[in-house]
């Protein structure tokens, strides 16, 4: 061993050179696209850029205009409604399905395959399929009316007040399978002794889930929440395919607002301001999560 110390130590920059060269794409992606791109967009959201980005700073003008535009306010309201219900229903349905599948049933693989297949489909396919099912003249509404209930009304995609719930139906169909899978993995990780102990103590099945199992699955629920939340903010193609923001502008969402202003309305500044608001909402969600995940671990 001592003989090797005679060899000249290479300068630290060139040590591990192949690994550094091989990591150039990763470094460029991290620094140029993720950090650089994000910073660039935030900076240019304070400019009056129209067709082309121009460094003509106008302070918070774009944000003031953003928050006084009806289309943006509708987008935010839709995102809030969609987000709230999507969060609750995805967690409840995902967990319930996982719990049902965890009861040592026959044909578990078949059920799991059926619940998860929508997740393999794109949002465009999902949106178009549900657009057809919810078609007022030929879809569910007409089928129920045909069975004799003439006054039955279920036409969410053409009713500005409830169109977002029509999108929610499609979104839940597509996304609940993923959460079910994560929950099922979490349930499988729970020690069977807990169930035995609960039975010995005479605690009922539902009560065992609510009082013992769910609190034990806290990390799984947090992962699921983060996944659902980041999916909600990204919602774009589903709306484009299913309603294209209509009727009128009643099903617009923030991600669509950004794309419209950047690439259709040729108002880059508005697009940058709106996308910075999206970034801000992610930061608001992520910081408490990162604190819980990483801050908590160090303390413990």
């Amino acid at each position, binding site marked *: 061993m001592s003989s090797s110390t005679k060899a000249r130590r290479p300068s*630290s920059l060139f040590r591990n050179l*192949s*690994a550094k060269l*091989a*990591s150039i*794409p*990763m470094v460029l*992606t991290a620094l140029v*696209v*993720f950090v650089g*791109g*994000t910073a660039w*967009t*935030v900076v240019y959201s304070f400019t009056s850029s129209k067709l082309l*980005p121009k460094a003509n700073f106008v302070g918070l003008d774009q944000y003031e205009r953003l928050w006084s535009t009806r289309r943006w306010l509708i987008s935010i309201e839709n995102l809030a409604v969609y987000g709230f219900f999507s969060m609750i229903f995805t967690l409840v349905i995902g967990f319930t399905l996982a719990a*049902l599948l965890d009861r040592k*049933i026959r044909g578990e693989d*078949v*059920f799991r395959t*059926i*619940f*998860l*297949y*929508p*997740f*393999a*489909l*794109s*949002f465009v*396919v999902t949106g*178009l*399929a*549900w657009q*057809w*099912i919810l*078609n007022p003249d*030929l879809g*569910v509404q*007409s*089928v129920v009316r045909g069975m004799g209930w003439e006054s039955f009304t279920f036409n969410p995609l053409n009713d500005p007040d409830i169109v977002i719930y029509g999108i929610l139906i499609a979104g839940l*169909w597509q996304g609940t399978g993923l959460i079910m*899978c*994560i929950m099922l*993995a979490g349930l499988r990780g729970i020690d069977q002794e807990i169930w035995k102990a609960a039975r010995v103590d005479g605690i009922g099945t539902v009560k065992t889930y609510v009082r013992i199992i769910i609190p034990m699955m806290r990390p799984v629920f947090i*992962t699921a929440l983060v996944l659902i939340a*980041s999916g909600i903010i990204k919602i*774009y*193609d589903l709306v*484009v*395919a299913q309603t*294209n923001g209509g009727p009128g502008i009643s099903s617009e969402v923030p991600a669509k607002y950004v794309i419209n202003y*950047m690439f259709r309305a040729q108002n880059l500044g508005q*697009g*940058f301001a*709106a*996308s910075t608001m*999206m*970034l801000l909402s*992610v930061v608001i969600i*992520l910081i408490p999560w990162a604190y819980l995940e990483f801050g908590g671990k160090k303390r413990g």
Partner: protein
Amino acid sequence: MADAVTPRGPKPRPRFSRTNIMLYGTLIVVAAYYALPLYVMIVTSLKGMPEIRIGNIFAPPVEVTYQPWVKAWAEACTGINCEGLSRGFWNSVQILIPSVILSIAIASVNGYALANWKFKGSEVFFTILIVGAFIPYQVMIYPIVIILREMGLYGNIWGLVLVHTVFGMPILTLLFRNYFTSVPEELFKAARVDGAGFWGIYFRIMLPMSLPIFVVAIILQVTGIWNDFLFGVIYTKPADYPMTVQLNNIVNSVQGVKEYNVNMAATLLTGLVPLIIYFASGKLFVRGIAAGAVKG
């Protein structure tokens, strides 16, 4: 000795107990609900338009016709262009193959470097990458337009390939890093003693050992890239639009009479590739999404 007569073990559950009926009943109803849209798409795509106008969307076709499928593939129109979805399909294939190869090649090397050849700052870049996965795409879309324009790749299939490589990098790097970290270190050390370098160990030891994780990565990328809509619409020209974008343009075009059977055939054709992968890969697909969900 009376004990010997009483049966041991837990009381067997009767097969048709109330709980069991409730349990299976609920599961079957929910499964029917999840399966319904696929069923409706299939039956609609096999009916003629007159039958659709008078009939029930849940009813099986009285007269099966494959005409809608032929029309969706070869004749459906987007604007003045009537070549059908086949063009979108081949565009998607042309985008898919290089994107999958490039993104997995780069991410697997990243993961390998991060797991076995840590250098100063490597963890920092990795953290940025993972945090970056949570940034909404809308924030980075325009700076990427500028970068691609400077490189002369904007509106070109190769520009889109690069975009897929960049946005697939966080999750794939995480996947490979976690896998390579679990490879026994003795193996790596032994290869080092034998004089193998960075690339030698990667190609001779790591690559042959980690075929399952490559399969998981391929499944993840093929479905993800095939289903992409946003990047396709922004970074390519109409002639190069991927299948999802062309599908949306065909179905949601405002011109002409709506042909629901052709629309559903087109929708199914677009969904076919990920569906086949999903049904064929089974547990590996689940492993792929689980790897995406559970952070290292």
